[in-house]
């Protein structure tokens, strides 16, 4: 039996406390009113610190002017995009079908008329498409003054989103890691793998976090639907009212259905986790292989459920933060990201437990196999990343390429940096057979991979929620520390509940004597 060392437990608590402080601080310092936001912008301009944010702010002004000139062509498409980047929006009209443009310009004209003369009203930032149309009619003198307000409003909403988005990214990341481990566990069961049964209890320990992670992510999704935060702009009725494209998606993107789906998906995953764990423990005490066979069937059924629900949940929880953008590959891309993170986590926790003398039968061959998976799935992730990116870059269809244009212009380092972290380093480090058997190498590669995939999730969520106002500060680091602490606490507590070696698994002998 494993005993949770008091040092590690203290460490987990320290992480949680530090993390909570960081998160609390970021919520505390987020602007409460529009004037706060203006003050922050002023300060940024005055001090000229934070080169990127500063430079981009200027950029953004320039783009606004440009956008206004093009305003006849502007349409509702720009709502989201303009939140983050006006210039892209200006080109976006090319792509939309002729009929759509007509319909949308009609909408803009209509709203613009309605809005005319409502200057000074506290416009919702999301009604920007209307502003764009309005600007064109109102002429350029009014524009400059108006634009500053306009910009401040953007920034205000982005800064308000920032602490929430930081918590959401970290919550999702750790939850999906345990889901990735669950998928790996199911695959190992369904494939009747002979090498991995000695690691089953470690995997079951990690998936112990699933229910906690699900609860937190679900709470954040409910908070979104209740308009407590604005990570998902399609949840805002104001936005939907002005957004032709989102209106077309409300059959799928609506609060109740969204939450029902989340509950069903999470419920299904948690049920499989609970059921397979029960069978795995029952097999230890059994005299026949009945539980093993049930677990085999359950794994197959889960994998079918998983492939469908995983895709839909990534559209729901991640893709829909950019509700105008879509990619068919997205679900599988997200899967590759958290699957490799899950396998990496198994390797890291196995190495830790082994170093404490807990996993008698785990040898370097098991580590070698895990490292091969880390290597292989890292390459697979890159394949999907590249496929998605290259196809959009190549075809250059404005309505979808905005997604990458935004990221390359405003998130250049994280966007390309993660490719180095998730592909270049793991490939170079883990290609050598001898290296894959060295604990410190696997740990090093593991830390790089996990960092890289956190940044991957960061890149997926942040551009749509905080735009060019991103930086990795107290909120982001705090959220990661908090969830890391919670993850460690829950996982290692689960590990203490049962012996670390599955006793009567029919493949356990193969696994104990596994040598590659």
């Amino acid at each position: 039996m494993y005993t949770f060392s008091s040092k590690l437990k203290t460490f987990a608590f320290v992480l949680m406390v530090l993390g909570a402080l960081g998160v609390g601080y970021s919520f505390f310092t987020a602007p409460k009113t529009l004037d706060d936001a203006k003050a922050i912008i002023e300060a940024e301009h005055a001090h000229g610190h934070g080169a990127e944010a500063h430079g981009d702010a200027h950029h953004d002004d320039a783009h606004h002017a440009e956008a206004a000139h093009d305003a006849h062509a502007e349409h509702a498409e720009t709502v989201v995009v303009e939140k983050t980047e006006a210039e892209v929006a200006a080109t976006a009209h090319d792509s939309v079908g002729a009929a759509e443009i007509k319909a949308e310009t009609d909408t803009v004209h209509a709203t613009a008329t309605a809005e005319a003369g409502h200057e000074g009203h506290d416009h919702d930032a999301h009604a920007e498409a209307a502003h764009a149309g309005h600007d064109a009619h109102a002429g350029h003198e009014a524009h400059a003054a108006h634009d500053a307000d306009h910009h401040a409003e953007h920034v205000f909403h982005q800064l308000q989103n920032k602490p929430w988005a930081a918590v959401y990214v970290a919550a999702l990341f750790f939850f999906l890691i345990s889901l990735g481990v669950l998928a790996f566990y199911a695959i190992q069961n369904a494939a009747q793998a002979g090498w991995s049964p000695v690691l089953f209890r470690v995997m079951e320990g990690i998936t112990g976090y699933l229910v906690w992670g699900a609860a937190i992510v679900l709470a954040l999704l409910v908070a979104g639907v209740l308009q407590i935060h604005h990570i998902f702009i399609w949840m805002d009725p104001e936005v939907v009212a002005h957004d032709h494209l989102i209106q077309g998606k409300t059959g799928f993107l609506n609060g109740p259905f969204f939450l029902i789906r989340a509950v069903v998906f999470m419920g299904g995953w948690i049920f499989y986790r609970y059921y397979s764990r029960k069978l795995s423990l029952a097999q230890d005490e059994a005299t026949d292989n009945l539980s093993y066979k049930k677990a085999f069937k359950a794994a197959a059924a889960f994998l079918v459920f998983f492939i469908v629900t995983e895709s839909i949940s990534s559209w729901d929880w991640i893709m829909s933060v950019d509700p105008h953008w879509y990619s068919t590959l997205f679900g599988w891309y997200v899967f590759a990201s958290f699957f490799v993170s899950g396998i990496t986590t198994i390797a890291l926790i196995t190495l830790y437990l082994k170093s404490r003398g807990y996993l008698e039968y785990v040898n370097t061959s098991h580590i070698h196999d895990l490292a091969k998976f880390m290597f292989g799935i890292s390459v697979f992730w890159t394949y999907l990343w590249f496929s998605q990116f290259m196809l959009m870059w190549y075809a250059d269809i404005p309505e979808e390429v905005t997604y990458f244009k935004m990221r390359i212009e405003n998130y250049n380092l994280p966007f390309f940096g993660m490719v180095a972290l998730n592909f270049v380093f793991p490939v170079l480090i883990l290609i050598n057979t001898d290296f894959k058997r060295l604990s410190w190498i696997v740990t090093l590669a593991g830390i790089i991979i996990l960092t890289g995939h956190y940044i991957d999730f960061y890149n997926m969520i942040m551009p749509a929620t905080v735009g060019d106002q991103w930086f990795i500060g107290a909120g982001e680091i705090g959220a990661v520390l908090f969830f890391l602490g919670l993850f460690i606490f829950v996982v290692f507590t689960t590990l203490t509940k049962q012996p670390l070696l599955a006793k009567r698994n029919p493949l356990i002998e193969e696994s104990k004597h596994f040598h590659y």
Partner: protein
Amino acid sequence: MSSHYEAPIRKPLIIGDKNYHDVTVDVARPVEGRANKQWWIAFAISLTAFLWGVASVAYTVGHGIGTWGSNKTVGWAWDITNFVWWVGIGHAGTLISAVLLLFRQKWRMAINRSAEAMTIFSVVQAAMFPVFHMGRPWLAFYVMPIPNQYGSLWVNFNSPLLWDVFAISTYLSVSLVFWWTGLLPDFAMLRDRAITPFTKRVYSILSFGWSGRAKDWQRFEEVSLVLAGLATPLVLSVHTIVSFDFATSVIPGWHTTILPPYFVAGAIFSGFAMVNTLLIIMRKVSNLEAYITIQHIELMNIVIMITGSIVGVAYITELFVAWYSGVEYEQYAFLNRATGPYWWSYWLMMTCNVISPQVMWFKKIRTSITVSFVISLVVNVGMWFERFVIIVTSLHRDYLPSSWTMFQPTWVDAGFYIGTIGFFFVLFLLYSRSFPVIAQAEVKSIMKTSSETYKKLHAAHAHDDHSHSEHNHH
């Protein structure tokens, strides 16, 4: 490699009372014996089809591409459909020899040789379409970046059609090397058994002087592993590049990011179906039932079921995202597939690819040879229609309604396609009579862990002494 201990729940992969010599004899028999009448009949039919294909190609080259049913709107139809179909079929061979090797699947050993042969023969068929669908195939060498007298006029590396050239040629050469390396010990076996000076000479040349020393074997295994490691990304990238032909375009129904992994999944799906078709016949006519067992067929059926489900998820994803995108062209492309003039091909594809593999969830069905054979054919029909649907239905109605049209193949289209099927079987039939169709050296390596004989011995032994750990060190 892997440990010698095998869990008792694993079923034997070599059934019957076989020893090492039996394996040799069983594998060598079809090569050393004479062809029977059925073989000659099959060969004659294939050859006729092949010759008809040669005639169709000659006619195309002589008279021009206008002899085909393609038109100004539908510039790609059967040519590229068949190309993608053949490349797809070829993928299972590499998958079986490379991916299953990386995953240490011992059952691959009985089927990898034939699967790789199938890869090579189908890539050869596939490679003909890119050449002969050209308007001026005699200028095909222009696709190569060769220094020349036109001020060194170069190719544009931005086209996925050029990437195809590199992908397919690399794929063919790597597969060929991988296959041939594996054949060396087996050709040596045939060389050593040869009775006539002619066969002795032939297999001596083919086996490159393989003598089977420890050092040779060690390097042989390392090379196999490295090649498997290279062939796996290759197999993924080749069909990915083929999918780029469509996905990089701006055509609604073509431009979708899921195509790369979805084409790869479809390739594995159709390729395994083809392997199943061929091996179900081969195990019977070459008396190899002891090596290609029901378990092998069942496992291939499971792969078909899994990849079929992945393809199904991709279909649903495409449909959903077409709706979700809010782009009416995208939405119409899918509406047109389901309800347009080619609705029958879409529903045929859906039935064959999404529904048919799902029957494999029933053990009774996936362990039935007859049903497996039928499904394997159904899948290949379905996968042909998948490519047809993607290519033709996306082209015949796209942005401008004034350019909408229909596509009707001619006898030349059909002749070329049937010709490649004939050519494929000509090659495969010749292969099955002159090559060791089972990698006997590999099969012998699992004899002591996975053959029925040894499994019984182990069981009897384990009964004698109850110590499990002792048992593991045989």
